[in-house]
């Protein structure tokens, strides 16, 4: 071992040895939470992680504004094309280029955000309402009911999520709302498991015991004590599922089970652009990049919410 290596080893020893106990305690505390692997280490190493979160929030707000006021951001119509300007590469006038019928891609992306966002919102709501209801009920029921409910949830986990949503799509038919509901069902199991474990965890704490001992009834205690203390973890999961839902909805749209063709939907737009891969890269690449950024931002925000919960 050379002197340099020794020094490096010693340095590592100090850095790891110095922080190890605290680090491990915090790690142990965070073990049941599988959603934030790199977030914490980034903060440790860089020291100013807020920038990523702030950028994510700004980006998400921008996309929400696209959905609410699309005409502010783009002068072009998303459906009616101008044949004279077909297949143009990205330029100042058309930042995302135009497609084969001369439609401005940027305006299609902007107008399409409402489909993706509202779809993801429906999906998360479906998963949240059904999943949390099952989870809270299971967590606060007796052992037998709890076991039965959670085994049913396990069954939903056993079916791959895409196949589960396809089974629901085949039942409900094609369309934006149908795709959103189908995606929502895939997150029921995650919400149920999380809310159950949170209820069980909070239920075992001294203050809940005290609340019951001082005469609290079941539902008020659930509302006053259990719910606020579980909210953070559930919110973090909801943000994560939002990103996942955007991804899944665009996948269903790409496969042709979502919105019908003239609709500007992100997944469908990529599917349509696929026929022009050789000549017009912007038709697929740019809408896809928007999807990636939205999902990435939602995951970052989710990690930030989860991290805040661990500190306080």
């Amino acid at each position, binding site marked *: 071992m050379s002197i340099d290596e020794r020094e490096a080893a010693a340095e590592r020893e100090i850095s790891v040895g110095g922080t190890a106990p605290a680090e491990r305690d915090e790690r142990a505390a965070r073990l049941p939470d599988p959603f934030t692997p790199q977030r914490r280490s980034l903060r440790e190493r860089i020291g100013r992680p807020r920038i990523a979160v702030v950028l994510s929030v700004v980006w998400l707000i921008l996309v929400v504004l696209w959905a609410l006021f699309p005409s502010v951001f783009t002068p072009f119509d998303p459906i009616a094309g101008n044949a004279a300007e077909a297949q143009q590469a990205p330029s100042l006038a058309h930042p995302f280029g135009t497609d084969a019928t001369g439609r401005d891609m940027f305006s299609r992306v902007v107008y399409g955000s409402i489909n993706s966002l509202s779809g993801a919102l429906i999906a998360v709501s479906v998963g949240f309402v059904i999943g949390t209801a099952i989870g809270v009920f299971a967590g606060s029921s007796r052992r037998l009911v709890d076991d039965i409910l959670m085994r049913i949830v396990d069954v939903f986990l056993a079916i791959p999520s895409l196949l589960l949503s396809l089974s629901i799509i085949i039942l409900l038919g094609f369309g934006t709302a149908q795709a959103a509901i189908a995606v929502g069902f895939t997150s029921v199991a995650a919400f149920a498991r999380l809310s159950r474990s949170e209820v069980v965890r909070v239920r075992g704490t001294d203050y809940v015991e005290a609340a019951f001992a001082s005469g609290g009834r079941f539902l008020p205690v659930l509302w006053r004590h259990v719910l606020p203390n579980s909210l953070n973890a559930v919110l973090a999961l909801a943000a994560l599922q939002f990103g996942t839902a955007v*991804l899944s909805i*665009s996948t269903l749209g790409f496969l042709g089970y979502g919105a019908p063709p003239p609709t500007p939907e992100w997944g469908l737009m990529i599917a349509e652009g696929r026929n022009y891969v050789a000549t017009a890269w912007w038709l697929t690449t740019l809408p896809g990049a928007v999807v990636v950024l939205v999902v990435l931002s939602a995951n970052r925000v989710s990690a930030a919410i989860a991290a805040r919960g661990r500190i306080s």
Partner: protein
Amino acid sequence: MRYVLGRLGQAAAVLLAAFTVAFILLQAMPGDAIMIKFENPELGLSPDQIAALRQAYGADTPLPAQYLHSLLGFLGGDFGYSIQSGTPVRQLLAEVVPGTLILAALGFVSAVILAVGITILANLPGLRRIADVFRSLPSLFVAVPVFWLGIVLIQVFSFQLRLIPVINPGPIEGLILPVLTLAVPISAPIAQILIRSVDDVLGYPFVAVVRARGADPWWILWRNVARNAVLPAFTMAGVLFGELIGGAVVTETVFGRAGVGRLTADAVTQQDTPILLAIVLLSATAFVVINLVVDLLYPVLDPRLGPRRRARVAAPRERKVVSV
């Protein structure tokens, strides 16, 4: 032994329940695929003929009888008939399963290599300054839509660089891009869990002891950390299988490959419920079997979980649901 039997029983129960759920969703609900196909006025079938057809498909018997019939059929390997083509579903599946198995196996192996590579790069003693770049790769991979990745890869490698022909690629050339497309999203959760467990293991006291005795970082990483850190990744096997199936549906559609995924997508488009039912059940079976094997093997692989502590094996399992 009692534990093994109990686990087997539990797995069988989950499978039966999965069958029931899938049956209720796909067969018992009102949207009747046979009616959709044969009530089409172009076919000019009389109501009597439709009734006869329904009888031939067994759609007129009461639900409990249908349920029992399908259940017995599935146990015996008979998955019924495709509504669109009339071919036995078993035959349709047998044609496409090998192709998908090759794709999935190669995709999985590449994903593991990719994940291990990322983990090593993220922990290399010499690369600590840029370790964060590698640490953030998995979260980027998770956010990338599989179908988009496939198209971008075609764009770059087939059209820009002209490395892989689009039309009639050789059997091996034709597999490169689909395997890569499938591997990237699968590698993300593996890399995440590997990086995290390496971090965990590095914090254990025994690592400090080894280091104090003069071991260099490489030695620690390979001899002490790697063995301990790989174990938690095994618990993800079932979830990864589900992602492989979902990924195969999309990858095969993007690259126009025949396979289980393509069959699934076509079945959904044509509302061919028997095919979807069979695929859903086969995947659920595979998921349950994989989890069973992992649960039974874990105590063998990890000596810390001896027979007395087996009861705790099931508890710390994480099942993260990541849809594709």
